[in-house]
């Protein structure tokens, strides 16, 4: 299975954000998006997820087009930009609420995901009391807890301490071996070079 991005362009109020982007994402690989802030990395992730419609171009998954449909690529989870959870609930309660939507997993899987991102000891703290790094880790736990086939992580290591970054990277490499498609963005090249099989550079709406 693969995701294909074909001739995707995106404009906002006449300003071009992405110009004729072509990419293919295959099973069992980690892809990195690198570039300065505002170069369209997050926009492309939203288009791939189906949250945004491209101005022109197409998104295919497993040969089926998802660009204009009101449905999303299946078995995909994402963390794009700042994670917004309910501030009055604990980290664990927030994840339980999201897990209940599909009812595919139980508490143990949620706890495992919190363990993976090094957040297990803070699981009962309210989200409003979390630091930036902890919020980011909870966002990553939200992505991995239901074992999706496609993982999309936008600047996942923002504010996360080195020890946890290494642990999450190891986890992602293990998931890659299982045949998953993983897409990461970062403005720090070092975050990507250690794990990505292919890195796309974003600059001025163009992707190389």
């Amino acid at each position, binding site marked *: 299975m693969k995701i294909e991005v074909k001739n995707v362009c995106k404009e906002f109020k006449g300003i071009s954000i992405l110009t004729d982007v072509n990419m293919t994402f295959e099973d069992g690989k980690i892809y990195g998006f690198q570039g300065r802030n505002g170069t369209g990395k997050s*926009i492309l992730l939203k288009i791939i*997820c189906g949250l*945004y*419609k491209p101005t022109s171009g197409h998104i295919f998954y497993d040969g089926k087009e998802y660009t204009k449909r009101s449905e*999303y690529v299946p078995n995909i989870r*994402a*963390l794009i930009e700042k994670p*917004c959870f*309910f501030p009055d609930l604990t980290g664990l309660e927030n994840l339980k609420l999201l897990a209940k939507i599909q009812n595919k997993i139980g508490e143990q899987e949620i706890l495992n995901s919190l363990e993976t991102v090094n957040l297990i000891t803070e699981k009962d703290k309210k989200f409003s009391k979390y630091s930036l790094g902890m919020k980011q880790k909870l966002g990553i736990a939200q992505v991995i807890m239901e074992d999706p086939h496609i993982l999309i992580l936008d600047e996942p290591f923002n504010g996360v301490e080195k020890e946890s970054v290494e642990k999450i990277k190891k986890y992602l490499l293990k998931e890659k071996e299982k045949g998953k498609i993983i897409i990461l963005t970062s403005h720090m090249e070092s975050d990507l070079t250690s794990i990505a099989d292919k890195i796309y550079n974003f600059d001025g709406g163009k992707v190389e």
Partner: protein
Amino acid sequence: MNSLGYSFQIVKQIFKGGFYKIFLFFLFLLGVNIFTTYNISNIVPITIDSIRFLLGLTYHSLLDLIWLMYQIGLTIYLSYLYFFYEIDNSPEFIFLRTDSYHFAIKKYFVFVICLVLFRILFYLFAHFVFLGNIAFSLSVFLWNIVLHVSIVTTIFICSVLPILINLKLLNKNHSK
């Protein structure tokens, strides 16, 4: 798929987040109404009619009209906050997990249930405060519920549903 818990949590979040801004003004207006109704100098005696408008049962003065418009405005404001909550709050968390159309329908019913419960609680509160001074009028009480549910339904059908059916039109919110 169960997104009801998520929707109820949004109601709770909006209620808590906007509590001071929204409900202090609600209490202020209620206070003004009570003050003018009772007329503290006791020149004007209390009548059933003068109390009835507190419940939204009659509209016959400018104050009644302000009170009515405020309640309608509040319903519109809360509807928009509620229905568009996840658009500004990590939409990928919810929309990659559930069908957006069914989620929207369930969300609508959750809001209507909460709205009806609020109207009932408000009515009971005012009814017990003025116990013995006012008779229960089911038809007027139901009219109020129909009015507010109609407002929510109109907002839902005209502006929420078209966006949620084709969520890919969400671009309007993004500037980056």
